């Protein structure tokens, strides 16, 4: 289909501000009378605050006030998972206990040094399996796990059960969750190759470049909060509840966010924005709270660590017959995360196994709080399952490419334990495209070639994430100047989806891009609700809403023209910013004229009447404030049917040095299958960015904690190493299938999350290949692990554990 905007490159309006430094992030703002907050955080991993003596601090010149958990929660702290604004019951090092406001940060820091907090030390634990021991410590007050709608509880295994799992055997304890489909036993009996083993995925910090600083002040009864979130209106909608301010009285200002990969999508993941808000309210001054890199580590959250057992069976023809997966999740210090189930869902989707069983138990540790992080579950399992496919292929005499083609999802298939049909699925095309562009077959002759201590490894991997939600709202406006204003509540996290989704509205109205204004960046510009921008959903979700809002405006344009100029609505079309009769284009009105006429008529044309009944409360507030100010199109998106998948395929060639354990990625291609491509350069960015994340997942990033004192040892970029320019290929190739999805009006689906998973899958497969098929069953695979393997040390002699060098 020939589009005016879709599939075309453009410059999103915020890019010049990024290269000049003009665009403002939360900490770049100032406000007259602004003072500064600093946090006192827990120095120990599990404790209870017995007493706070801040008398000396509060008497200091320049100190303006203090905020404690008692101020935030006068009726007591909520007994739920997730970080709180402040707490008297810290369950991880670095958890905020109190905040001091002062005229400058130095004074605030000095005041904090004069505060005496008496803690009651409580037992702590760093590894879920340690906590499952009969005498193991519990991470939380009230247990080591959280049961939905029931609260905290204690879960214990026998010592023999823990020891047996650590020794590599299938867990025998009762899982908290079991999901299954198909006849597992029968499917395994049909298998001619069965792999069985344990694995670990290390948790690791989110580490967005911009620390979660925030500025808050109150004016005319409204709270103005400058912060950074992946989402804009969805975050504001949630944080209003966290702080306890009516939605209509919150102005969230967020022109740009310095990175968001899951942990910055929702209000619950950044409750500390409430600290400057409540301090500001208490002392009646604007309060800036700058967050340090170390604080970002604990406030910022992390990926769940997984400790698991997997059994996979393949039929003689390479079909994945069965997969049995048992995972103990590390829920960290505050609970949260559902990665393990998603791992099983991913295997079901990507490999279409005849039978799948997932069993899981989630256990807390006194480590960083966990939550969504780029492909939660799907991406952790990618480097585990991909080498298993390769070894199975070698055992069965099938090529590593063919075993993926044999098991590939495609149109008409279903996936996951719920057996949900895909809206569309073109994974076979993605596999073919990646293999062709990479020259996969031609490179097979290089496989395992050696040059001194160096050996070539080839890997292919697939990634998946559900990539679309629906049920949100859209608003477009037009004034008498005829410019289209897209009121966009999508956050500016770096994907440029706030701009890409706006182009769906421009497409409907055939508007030149230079005649379109994106209204965004602060919620007092009256923006509709969106879904939180996690789960690769923005493109799918919000092209639907803005397409719908523009369609509503288009229908209203035709109505006005038909009423004023005669004829029926269906007699009219649009072109060149005019609505005109199809039979005689000279009979018509310019967009500016029709907008002015709509404003004159009022009612439904200006959002004052006949609104969709299903609009969210947040959108209703926005519409009510816009009503009468312009010509309006407004839309509530109904729920879609099926699972819109985001797929990627990656091919990698590495050269691994058996003497150093290091490897260089010689070539890498990352190919997307995510429906219609909205913005090619934006797609490239997602694919190369995901590739870097995949390299980090497979090779570098992990939590480390001091086992004696529970102190985090990976609070910086170099300790839980984020890949640098030198860890990534000189050039990353990209590609895409570009076939439309029928459940989206412009055919688009998301891709951000699987772009990491397929790279991690391919890289781990390449390492396995270079090492003659050795499966580590771990992410990351570090240089020391490779050296130990080459030296003959059995990697599995290191027991399964989290938050240490093994996992």
């Amino acid at each position, binding site marked *: 289909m020939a589009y005016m905007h879709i599939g075309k*490159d453009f*410059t*999103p309006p*915020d*890019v*010049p*501000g*990024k*290269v*000049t*430094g*003009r*665009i*403002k*992030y939360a*900490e*770049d703002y100032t406000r007259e009378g602004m003072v500064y907050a600093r946090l006192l955080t827990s120095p120990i991993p599990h404790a209870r605050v017995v007493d706070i003596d801040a008398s000396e601090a509060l008497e200091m010149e320049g100190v303006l006030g203090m905020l404690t958990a008692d101020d935030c929660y006068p009726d007591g702290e909520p007994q739920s998972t997730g970080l709180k604004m402040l707490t008297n019951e810290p369950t991880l090092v670095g958890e905020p206990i109190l905040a001091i406001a002062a005229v400058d940060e*130095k004074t605030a820091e000095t005041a904090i040094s004069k505060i005496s907090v008496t803690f009651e030390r409580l037992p702590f634990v760093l590894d879920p399996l340690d906590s499952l021991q009969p005498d193991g410590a519990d991470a939380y007050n009230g247990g080591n796990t959280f049961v939905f709608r029931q609260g905290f509880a204690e879960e214990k295994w026998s010592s023999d059960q823990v020891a047996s799992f650590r020794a590599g055997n299938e867990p025998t304890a009762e899982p908290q969750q079991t999901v299954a489909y198909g006849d597992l036993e029968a499917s395994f009996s049909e298998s001619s190759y069965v792999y069985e083993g344990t694995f670990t995925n290390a948790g690791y910090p989110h*580490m*967005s*470049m*911009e*620390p979660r600083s925030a500025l808050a002040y109150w004016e005319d009864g409204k709270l103005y909060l400058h912060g950074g979130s992946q989402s804009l209106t969805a975050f504001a909608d949630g944080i209003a509840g966290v702080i306890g301010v009516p939605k209509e009285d919150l102005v969230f200002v967020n022109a*740009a*966010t*310095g*990175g*968001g*990969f899951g942990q910055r999508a929702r209000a619950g993941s950044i409750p500390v924005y409430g600290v400057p808000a409540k301090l500001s309210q208490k002392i009646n001054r604007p309060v800036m709270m700058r967050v*340090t*890199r170390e604080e970002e580590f604990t406030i910022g959250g992390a990926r769940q660590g997984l400790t698991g057992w997997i059994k996979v069976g393949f039929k003689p023809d390479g079909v994945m017959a069965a997969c049995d997966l048992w995972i103990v999740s590390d829920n960290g210090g505050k609970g949260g995360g559902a990665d393990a189930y998603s791992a099983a869902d991913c295997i079901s989707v990507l490999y279409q196994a005849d039978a799948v069983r997932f069993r899981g138990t989630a256990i807390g540790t006194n480590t960083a709080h966990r939550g969504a992080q780029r492909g939660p579950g799907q991406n952790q399992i990618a480097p585990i399952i991909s080498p298993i496919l390769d070894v199975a292929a070698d055992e069965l005499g099938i090529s590593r490419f063919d075993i993926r083609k044999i098991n590939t999802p495609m149109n008409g298939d279903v996936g996951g334990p719920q057996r949900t049909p895909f809206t569309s699925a073109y994974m076979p095309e993605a596999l073919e495209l990646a293999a062709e562009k990479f020259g996969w077959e031609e490179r097979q002759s290089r496989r395992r070639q050696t040059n001194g201590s160096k050996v070539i490894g080839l890997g292919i991997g697939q990634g998946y994430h559900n990539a679309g939600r629906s049920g949100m709202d859209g608003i477009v406006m037009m004034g008498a100047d005829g410019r289209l204003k897209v009121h966009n509540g999508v956050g500016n*996290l*770096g*994907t*440029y989806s706030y701009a890409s989704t706006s182009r769906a509205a421009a497409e409907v109205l055939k508007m030149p891009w230079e005649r379109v204004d994106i209204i965004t960046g602060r919620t007092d510009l009256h923006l509709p609700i969106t879904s939180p921008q996690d789960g690769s959903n923005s493109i799918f979700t919000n092209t639907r809403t803005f397409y719908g809002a523009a369609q509503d405006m288009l229908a209203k344009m035709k109505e006005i023209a038909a009423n004023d100029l005669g004829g029926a609505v269906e007699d009219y079309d649009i072109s060149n910013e005019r609505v005109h009769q199809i039979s005689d284009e000279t009979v018509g009105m310019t967009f500016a004229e029709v907008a002015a006429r709509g404003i004159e008529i009022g009612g439904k044309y200006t959002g004052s009447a006949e609104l969709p009944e299903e609009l969210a409360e947040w959108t209703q507030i926005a519409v009510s404030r816009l009503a009468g100010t312009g010509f309006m199109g407004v839309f509530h998106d109904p729920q879609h049917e099926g699972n819109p998948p985001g797929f990627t395929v990656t091919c990698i060639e590495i050269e691994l040095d058996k003497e150093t354990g290091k490897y260089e990625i010689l070539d890498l291609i990352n190919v997307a299958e995510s429906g219609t491509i909205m913005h090619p*350069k*934006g797609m*490239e*960015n997602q694919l*190369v*960015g*995901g*590739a*870097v*994340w995949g390299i980090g997942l497979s090779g570098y990033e992990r939590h480390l904690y001091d086992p004696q004192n529970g102190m985090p040892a990976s609070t*910086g*970029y*170099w300790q839980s190493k*984020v*890949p*640098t*320019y*030198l860890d*990534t*290929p*000189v*050039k*990353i190739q990209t590609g895409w299938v570009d076939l439309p999805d029928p459940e989206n009006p412009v055919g688009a689906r998301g891709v951000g999350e699987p772009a990491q998973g397929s790279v991690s899958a391919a890289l781990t497969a390449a390492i396995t290949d270079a090492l003659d098929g050795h499966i580590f069953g771990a992410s990351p695979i570090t240089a020391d692990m490779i050296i130990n393997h080459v030296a003959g040390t059995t990697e599995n002699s290191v027991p399964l554990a989290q938050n240490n060098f093994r996992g």
Partner: protein
Amino acid sequence: MNPQLTRRRFIKGVIASGAAATTTATWYSATGQSRPSGFVERLVRINVNGQIRNVDVEPQETLASTLRYKLGLTGTKLGCNRGECGACTVLVNDVPTYACSVLTHSMKSGRIETVEGLESANGELHPVQQAFVEELSPQCGYCTPGQVMAAVGLLRANPNPSREEARHALSGNICRCGSYDSYLDGVMRATELTG
């Protein structure tokens, strides 16, 4: 008191130094006295984007703090504030420098350039900035000013770098979004724009 220092000579020294305000720092500057061990002046003159700026700084104040919080040049970002990430990269005498890791009072003889100083007077973007726009190099943008400055520093030292050379030159700048490939595309595009 040093017998050679008279009030008249002190005032003449202040005038000669061009300082607008007298501090102990200018006193020593004017008199040519050697400074006591551990002495750090408060008011310093630094050259930022071609302008001489008099700034009152704390002894331990970093250049990044001065730029952001004293001079309002918030284009210089603080990602880690401890020399790990490169988001605060500025040029000092054309050399990419982590502004979080140098003290402002050590910058008196340096020619400091920040991202705000790259555009021409008529608002035309520097070729590196223009190339980064054309190649959509930034994602979240938080590391972008540092990447821009590192790239500008590279191109001044080596106007025609290979992609491999650019990769090494920018390797002190982390991008958590993983936009390295797009930044390298931008650097190579900038070499074309500069001819």
